[in-house]
């Protein structure tokens, strides 16, 4: 019983934790595409900065993932 609730907790942790970064990465990519459309010559720089910003956003999902993994396996 305890194990079942822990499984649900792990699922919720990563599931809820992925919502924010998902929205964030979507917004980031859409803005980057817009910028690329306006100014195609800056493609390289836009891509570089986009990847960096996505890494920051994704880190939040990774924290949720780590919490889920800890609930499940520790």
């Amino acid at each position, binding site marked *: 019983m305890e*194990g079942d609730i822990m499984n649900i907790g792990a699922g919720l942790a990563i599931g809820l934790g992925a919502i924010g970064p998902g929205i964030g990465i979507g917004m980031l990519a859409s803005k980057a595409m817009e910028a690329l459309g306006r100014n195609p010559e800056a493609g390289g720089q836009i891509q570089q900065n986009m*990847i*960096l910003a996505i*890494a920051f956003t*994704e*880190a939040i999902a990774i924290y949720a*993932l*780590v919490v889920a*993994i800890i609930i499940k*396996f520790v």
Partner: protein
Amino acid sequence: MAKLLGSPKALSITIVIAAVFVVSILGGALGNSLGFGFLSSSLPAIQLPAEIVVQGFDTPVGDWDLMNTMVTTWLAIIVLAVVAIFVRKGLSEVPGRLQALFELVMEFFINLCESIAGPENGRRFFPLVFTIFIFIVVANWMGILPGFGTIGRVADPSEIAHHHGVHHYSDPAEDQGHQTGSSHKKASGHGEEHSGHLEKVNLHVFSGTGGIAILQPGSLNEEITFHDYEEAHGDVGEGKRAGHLVPFLRSANTDVNMTLAMALIAMVMVHYWGLSILGSLTHLGKFINFKDGPIGFFVGILEIISEFAKIISFTFRLFGNIFAGEVLLMAMGFLLPMIGIIPFLGLELFVGVIQALIFSMLTLVFASMASVAHGDEEHH
């Protein structure tokens, strides 16, 4: 699609790929419920801390266990050192293929450093940034080679019980020499005592009793619960033993100690550069600030907190990505063994290089941020 199916060559390739995938699905855990499952083995025991390969070295500074991530870290260092010596020896005016590859990567990074941190500081930051990059790439890519996480020794049930917080567990297999009556009493007593800890733990049954073991393909049903193991008095069959696989090799960055160490090195160097480029007063003035009134003071405190947040995010970004990748590969090897796992191996190659790039890029960006005083930034 119509064009694809029109040409006989493309059509036959498509059919072969589809057939291979069907075989993979049937051979895996899904096919097992239909009576197949000939390719997959049961899911290995996933453990967050690194596993112990050799227990208890007696060193002057206390007992040391040899962890499997430590083995891999040293392997990665050896590989890098050998490649470095090899490239250095063959260095020539007209680059060979290996040298051209390294020149390409190094040039990319030098340009990156110089474009972000300026020509002078870029050269100063380059060695650490590039070292972090190649080390993480090599360590991550080594982690998906065959043999990692699959070949190892067998941990016996008492070691597993110890790991789950049950100490002084006596293995019923070793008790068998005594009279059966008392042994049985003991075993049933264990069952009650440890039911909370061990009832969810499954043991794998390995054939053979040598020092090296693998989870063989087609051994999906060779699993036994702790309770059944005690019921059987540790007897799982002739020439077989129960336990967990402890792999000899495990991807280096699936250990928090490793990523934390790298994050600390990176942040200590960032602050060393901040101190040496700006001078200690200017650099520390960013964090302990009395000049701009109470708001400036609070901003300084926030800066201190954000420095620690950087260490934590460095640590868990790399660790989380690589550990999740390992778990993903294990789960996919369980569901779609041998063939269905190939796209995920490609994904892990990509994740490995992206995470290395992010770690080194962030080190570079933080370093170039630390080497600029606050006043300068605002006047841009």
